[in-house]
């Protein structure tokens, strides 16, 4: 493995400098794009400022909005995983379930999550339920598809070994197929949480009145591009963090696989 070192900071640093230069030298029309320093300052006040007392209505409201969005992502993601993993297992394992359910999933999957927005508002109204529906639906597809794929990829020899050792179909599903599909399931979960963050921003921009998506749209309307950029950075960080969390869980649960790669 090549040495990691601090090299990875070079490109972000260069981009930051370019951004700064573009604003300072007015390569872009002044007043539209905020300077990095301005974003940093606004972001700081948004996080640490006293709520309700300052001139800025955003002051001190960052954490509350982060928690709103994170809670929705977590809830929607958990619903998606709770439905997607078992369903994917059955689709991959049982021909009948596959024939019954899989075509419908493949037909619905290309409908973008954004296209569901009017439908969601019409059915669920401007409440959390609508947001959860969009987040759950968006995260569901990659989870169910990757779980199915993982199940179908199970080594035939391991299935034969389990049958020869007297395992019932239920035991095989739990002790052979599921662990064998687990790496693929985790791929689905990581893709799913990414979609969940996309969906939460879209849902909050339109369907609910709180969270980072709401702040993003609101700040755009009142011309606070500094807050917009700070929101973008916040969402990016949260998305990265949730991906690392799932990846960390995968590393713990798939220890046997890491050994395989190095062995």
């Amino acid at each position, binding site marked *: 493995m090549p040495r990691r070192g601090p090299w990875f900071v070079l490109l972000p640093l260069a981009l930051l400098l370019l951004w700064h230069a573009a604003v300072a030298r007015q390569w872009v029309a002044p007043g539209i794009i905020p300077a990095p320093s301005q974003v940093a300052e606004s972001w700081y006040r948004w996080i640490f400022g006293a709520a309700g007392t300052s001139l800025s209505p955003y002051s001190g409201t960052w954490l509350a909005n982060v928690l709103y969005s994170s809670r929705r992502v977590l809830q929607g993601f958990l619903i998606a995983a709770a439905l997607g993993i078992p369903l994917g297992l059955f689709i991959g394992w049982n021909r009948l379930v596959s024939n019954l359910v899989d075509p419908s999933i493949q037909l619905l999957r290309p409908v973008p999550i954004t296209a569901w927005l009017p439908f969601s508002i019409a059915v669920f109204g401007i409440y959390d339920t609508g947001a959860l529906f969009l987040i759950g639906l968006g995260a569901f597809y990659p989870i169910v598809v990757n779980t199915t794929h993982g199940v179908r990829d199970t080594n035939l*020899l391991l299935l*034969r070994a389990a*049958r020869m050792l*007297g395992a019932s179909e239920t035991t095989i599903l739990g*002790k052979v197929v599921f*662990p064998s599909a687990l790496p693929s399931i985790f791929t689905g979960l990581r893709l799913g949480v990414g979609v969940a963050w996309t969906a939460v921003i879209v849902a909050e921009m339109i369907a609910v009145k709180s969270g980072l998506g709401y702040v993003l749209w609101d700040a755009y309307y009142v011309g606070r591009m500094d807050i917009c950029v700070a929101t973008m950075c916040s969402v990016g960080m949260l998305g990265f963090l949730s991906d690392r969390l799932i990846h960390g869980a995968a590393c713990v649960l798939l220890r*046997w696989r890491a*050994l395989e790669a190095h*062995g």
Partner: protein
Amino acid sequence: MAEARGPSIQLRDVWKDFVKRGRRVEALRAIEVAVEVNEFAALLGPSGCGKSTLLNMVAGFDRPTRGEVLVNGVRVERPDPSRAVVFQEPALFPWYTVLDNITFGPKTRGLRPAAYQPRVDALLEQVGLEGFESHYPAELSGGMKQRVGIARVLVMEPQVLLMDEPFGSLDAQTRLVMQELLLSVWERHHQTVLFVTHDVEEALLLADSVSVMTARPGRIKKRISVELPRPRALELTTSAAFNDLKREVLSLIREESRRAAVQSGG
């Protein structure tokens, strides 16, 4: 266990066809095999002769196109722990440790640890896996993996042990060690064994009988009794009696490969 009447493994007029790319391929033709109780029988044949297919039918993974496969007088319909299989690839569960792989069968049967633990301990010692209980398969060498593969089926106390070129993917050194290990383990347990191989020396060293198979479609060309004294060890392979048998088997194989070459025009 009630004493079974007749042979332990019996194949009666077994035929097997495959459909490959829309064409019917005859894999096995009119197979008659009888393996007596406690016999160590080897099936020797060139690759592609259908010997693994034959073994898979005894295991219950596959059904004959015609004829029937009986084990202890009962027709084979599906896999069962009484017919244990050791595969060429060890086929261990990579997410389980050595110990969890070995106890997979007993746990699946719902046995309590007290019921199988003494047997597990004895087997770990017999196959030389002591101290490796908490290792994952990925941490083991090929030979060690195959030891786990043997231990996890012996713990089920199978009536019949089916081995599909179990040492085929091991290096020559490890192979010899594993052959001796299998001999010593078999001396203790004395199951009926059906052992598939393409290695003449391996077949003669291990088995009581060697059935030589023809090239596709596979038939049993000749069954040779290996009346060499037991317990056997590797030194046996240098004895005159061993070499006489080897010469006999090799001439059968030569005859067969010549026929196959003429047949395929190669």
